[in-house]
């Protein structure tokens, strides 16, 4: 397997506050990776930096491309559609994606939309939280790229929508592509993950194989994740 993402010596500050320090991370192709950390730990920031919508010092390489403009064609980052007015019809947004992204696969989108039961004649404002997340996931996964970044796709949605989204990820993930999913409730996706990356104290705390954690420590992923914080308190 080849490396799909390489982050080297990444440092990022915002208004003099250090958000990420000395981040080094390498991910292989073909994986599903859980990006874990408390709210505000820097998960979204790291995704935005990888995508190239925010800038930092250090090197980021996606599928061999390190320049921001080149990188963008290899990464599909889950957009929360904040730029669209609530009155926009979903099919207009799909058209927009087709226009902006050369790699947008309409057939794949239609399959996903069908599987997730998305009514494209609706306005954005008519969507429940779960249906909006489904729509966003369908858009994100319909680009043909090597790296997909899903930012808290299960935040605030019901368990049926969650199952549908998980199944669509399993069904439609291209074999060699890697999907990074950020979440602060790991238990709802842990069976899906090849490995976890934990962001803590402004940097990568660990990057481990999920089944290896279960095998070596006899712990579930959530307990392991929580144990990283308990250890932190002992040192205080």
């Amino acid at each position: 397997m080849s490396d799909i993402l390489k982050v080297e010596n990444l440092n990022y500050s915002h208004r003099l506050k250090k958000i990420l320090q000395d981040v080094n991370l390498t991910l292989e192709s073909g994986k599903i990776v859980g990006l874990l950390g408390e709210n505000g730990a820097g998960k979204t920031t790291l995704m935005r930096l990888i995508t190239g919508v925010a800038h930092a010092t250090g090197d980021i390489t996606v599928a061999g491309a390190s320049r921001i403009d080149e990188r963008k064609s290899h990464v599909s980052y889950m957009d929360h559609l904040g730029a669209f007015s609530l009155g926009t019809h979903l099919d207009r947004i799909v058209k927009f994606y087709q226009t902006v992204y050369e790699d947008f696969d309409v057939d794949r989108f239609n399959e996903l939309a069908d599987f997730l039961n998305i009514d494209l004649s609706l306005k954005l404002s008519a969507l429940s939280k779960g249906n909006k997340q489904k729509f966003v996931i369908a858009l994100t996964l319909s680009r043909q790229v090597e790296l997909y970044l899903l930012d808290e796709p299960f935040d605030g949605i019901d368990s049926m929508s969650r199952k549908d989204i998980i199944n669509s990820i399993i069904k439609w993930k291209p074999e060699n592509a890697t999907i990074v999913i950020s979440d602060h409730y790991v238990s709802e996706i842990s069976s899906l993950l090849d490995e976890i990356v934990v962001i803590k104290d402004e940097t990568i705390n660990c990057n481990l194989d999920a089944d290896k954690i279960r095998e070596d420590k006899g712990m579930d992923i959530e307990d392991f994740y929580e144990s990283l914080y308990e250890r932190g308190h002992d040192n205080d």
Partner: protein
Amino acid sequence: MKFDDKIPIYLQIQNYLDRQIISGELAPGDRLPSVRQLAVDVTANVNTVQRALSEMIDEKIIVPQRGRGNFVTVDVDLIAQLRLKLVDEQFALVYDQLRALNFSDSEIIDKFVEYVKDRGALNE
């Protein structure tokens, strides 16, 4: 499929498929669903399913055929061995628990014979 998150997922998938083979739901010579379909069926990722299958291929319970997919072995002796292994695993659990409660071997045997008789009578 509901997983116990403390136990490696690939082992649980392997166990699930072993049971299907022992119960005959997957018969000798049957073709398994594709890796992707199995992943959807059990809600796990493709790599984890592939790892479970690799273990089973090592044990020769599953035989891969190039370009055609994975097949359950037609070697019924191997399936018989798998069946016995599963009995051992189940007995090991019960035995360890009862020994931990200071039951003697002969008590365990006597009680077990009695238990099977009672259950058997109920099932008739």
